[in-house]
């Protein structure tokens, strides 16, 4: 597992910009910012038959934040909210140093070097927290 914070996989994710742009027909939306650094995200999610089918977002943030938003739009559609919640927990454990490499899905491992930089945890987590908030709103309706 590479310990390079800005490894190619992170840069590729950010550059790919999966899910960039707002969804026309969203089940719910959330807008979050990180007051410490100014990262901002406006995220939409569409749910169908209990599954997340699409994520769109407008992210103004650092490379880590944009990579995390891109990861969501690439990896999450097709799964139930509970499965996203599990991925969210894995990412948290990864950043807190409480996860082993084998206990975290491989696609999240490029975010692992951020665990050494506490000030950057919020950058990685912001899109996940936005999706969690949107899902909470969607399921409350």
């Amino acid at each position, binding site marked *: 597992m590479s310990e390079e*914070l*800005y490894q190619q996989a992170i*840069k590729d994710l950010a550059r790919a910009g999966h899910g960039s742009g707002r969804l026309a027909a969203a089940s719910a939306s959330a807008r979050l910012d990180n007051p*410490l*650094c*100014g*990262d*901002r995200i406006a995220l939409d999610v569409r749910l169908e038959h209990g599954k997340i089918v699409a994520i769109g977002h407008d992210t*103004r*943030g*650092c*490379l*880590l934040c944009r990579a995390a938003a891109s990861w969501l739009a690439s990896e999450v559609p097709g799964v139930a909210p509970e499965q996203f919640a599990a991925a969210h927990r894995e990412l948290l454990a990864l950043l807190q140093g409480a996860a082993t490499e084998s206990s975290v899905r491989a696609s999240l491992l490029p975010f692992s070097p951020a665990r050494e*930089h506490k000030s*950057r945890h919020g*950058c990685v987590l912001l899109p996940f927290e936005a999706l969690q908030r949107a899902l909470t709103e969607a399921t409350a309706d």
Partner: protein
Amino acid sequence: MNFDAASFDPMSFNPQAVRAEFPLLMLADPLLHYLDNAATPQIHRSAMEAMADHDMFQRANIMRGTHHLAEAATAAYEEARAQAARFLNAATPDEVVFTAGTTAALNLVAHSFGDTLRPGDEVMLSLAEHHSNLVPWQLLRQRRGIVLKFLPLTADGRIDLAALAGMLTPRCRLVALTHCSNVTGAITDVATVVAAARGVGARVLLDGAQQVQHGPVDVQALDIDFYAFSGHKCFGPNGIGVLWARGEILEAMPPFLVGGGMVGEVTPEGSTFARPPQRFEAGTPPIAEAVGLGTVLAWLSTLPWQAIRAHENELLRRLLAGLRQRSDIRILGPVDLEARQPVVSFDIAGLHPHDVCQVLDRHGVALRGGHHCAQPLIRHFGLDGANRASIAMYTTHADIDALLDGLDDVVAVLR
């Protein structure tokens, strides 16, 4: 601690020698290139020693105590106030109120002086203000129904004082501006502000947080009414700062924070309040920190500022020239040396400031990235954040070169 002013040649300054007086710079990784001085410069050894000595040999609460330690602590605290008055050339130490810092000082004015304002009264700010000189006034607007006006900015981010005369009305009670921008380094033309404000009978407040690490201030020569600064911004301790205001203004201001130490007589029916400055220093203040601040202000008052200015400008010229050589970099604010302090913010096309600063940290370069608590100013430049390098008296050519040399790696890593 005594400082021998005669030991300094007013025309020469040796940054390497002064670095030796900053323990962190001596003890830290030799590859550290600290360029985050606008946020917090390093603390001078004299302040650390004065605080330690105070707490080791004369720690006690101030005022009212009759034992010898209380008297010694009170004398040390009041000497710190007198030293702050000398640093500012205040008419009397009674015009110096100790606060927790610049933010606390500005909140004090917004609450106390603010409580004397009426609905429809105006406070003039600018779009270049730090949030600390913006948000307190927004809350005052909610409480008192005052009107906030914002001076626009020029293309290079300076406060556009050409607009001032046309925006001032007889309802303006206060013009509250930064003395020096924490983003662009631009120094406000105070004389123009004061002349215009006096024309309508408005008071003038300066946020001096960024100015004080570059030398003493003369509030009487500036002819202003309020001045606020922080100890940690001028090589002193955290948690202590100063609000200076003209004596007659302080006398007319009601208390803000209340409690012990700031009252006259207290009965179940009500209280009378002490005169300034005690009226505005409720509770036990940070005594050792005040002593540390007084000590570092005494040290600052002995330094050869003309030579320091020349040193800082030499580094600033080198920094600006190095940044301007790169086509992918845009400098925010003035690009010359006129009327500015050595604070330089810049944007690298397509690269987020946090990523830039993270990579530079590998080169030992401590830079700050973000909105710098000045979101309206950053948005003026069409950005969400910027990189900021800030030079202090102990900065060296090697520090500037480490930053400039690291930029190629920044681009290589992030693109």
